[in-house]
């Protein structure tokens, strides 16, 4: 399973990194650069949808205004990217949108599907109106967990804490 996911991720990265394939990549599995890179290794309008290896459903979608491979990353294809203008969307089992996280800067690992940033971020879920801001986060996709390290502010609808009707 891990082997298969890794292959999917690598294939997506190849799609992203190949200018020749950019024009023919408007699939759900990868939405790629639409503008020339301003500098070598930097991709504008970067986006990637990551699917569950077994079910094929979209789990997470990363998109950003710019992305560049992290310098420390080695190997054939970088897994870790430094992105600006991140938009991270998680999806439920029926592929409807769940949480959306936005951050000015972020480091994304497309293999593990994790994202982290020491800077500010904002998140929201339209379904129940939960909104959140904070400084410094780590999104662990495997455990579906978001860790916030500073200045957490969460807003929820009061209707979510409604009790049953009072007896008359």
């Amino acid at each position, binding site marked *: 399973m891990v082997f298969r996911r890794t292959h999917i991720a690598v294939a997506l990265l190849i799609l992203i990194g190949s200018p020749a394939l950019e024009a023919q990549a408007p699939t759900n599995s990868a939405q790629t650069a639409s503008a020339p890179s301003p500098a070598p290794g930097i991709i504008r309008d970067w986006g990637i949808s990551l699917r569950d290896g077994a079910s094929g459903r979209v789990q997470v979608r990363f998109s950003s205004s710019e992305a560049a491979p992290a310098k420390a990353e080695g190997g054939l294809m970088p897994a870790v990217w430094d992105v600006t203008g991140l938009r991270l969307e998680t999806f439920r089992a029926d592929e409807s949108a769940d949480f959306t996280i936005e951050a000015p800067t972020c480091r994304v690992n497309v293999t593990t599907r994790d994202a982290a940033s020491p800077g500010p971020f904002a998140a929201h879920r*339209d*379904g129940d109106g939960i909104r959140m801001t904070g400084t410094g986060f780590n999104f662990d996709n495997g455990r579906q967990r978001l*860790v916030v390290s500073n200045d957490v502010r969460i807003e929820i609808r009061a209707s979510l804490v409604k009790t049953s009707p009072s007896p008359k």
Partner: protein
Amino acid sequence: MIRSLHVLRWVLLTLLVAGPVRAQLQDRIQLTATNAVLEFQEGVYHLWDHVRVESSGVLTLTCDDLRAVLPQDKAAAAATVAPGAGGSGRLQSLVATGHVQIQFFQAGAGGTTNVVHASGDKAEYGAADEVLILTGNPRIETGSGTMVGTEALIYDLKSRSMRNRGPYRIELRSDVLRNSVLFNRGTNAPKSR
């Protein structure tokens, strides 16, 4: 004396129930803290360090550690949920620990605001049985007096009743009894001349 205790109990119940009822009328509840962990699948929100929960004009809660469970409503999740529809999970449970301070606000007569102050080491709320359990030196203060429990003070949101686990003590403000019949009854004592 017993009658006065009943009066105080009604006052406490009325003020306590006012918080949740008015909370339904307010739109947003804000939770702030230094740190937080959100477990998306389980719907667990864990906040710690300088935790504050505020529903404007209704209640404020401060504590060291707060764990709330708002599980995803599977039926709502499966359906297409329109933005703002509020179709996801409801609060299932809430546990606040460490220096728990809760203040309920209620509009009083003449534009005043009555404040009920509850404190303890731990406050637990369970949506299944809809009770709020205050433990660890539980204490509830109103304008009329103070109820101090030794083990737990339990408020049932459904029946609007309060009960205790273990002995408790009620401290009434002296002016509450000023007009009570308790101290204005006729006695057999001879009239002073």
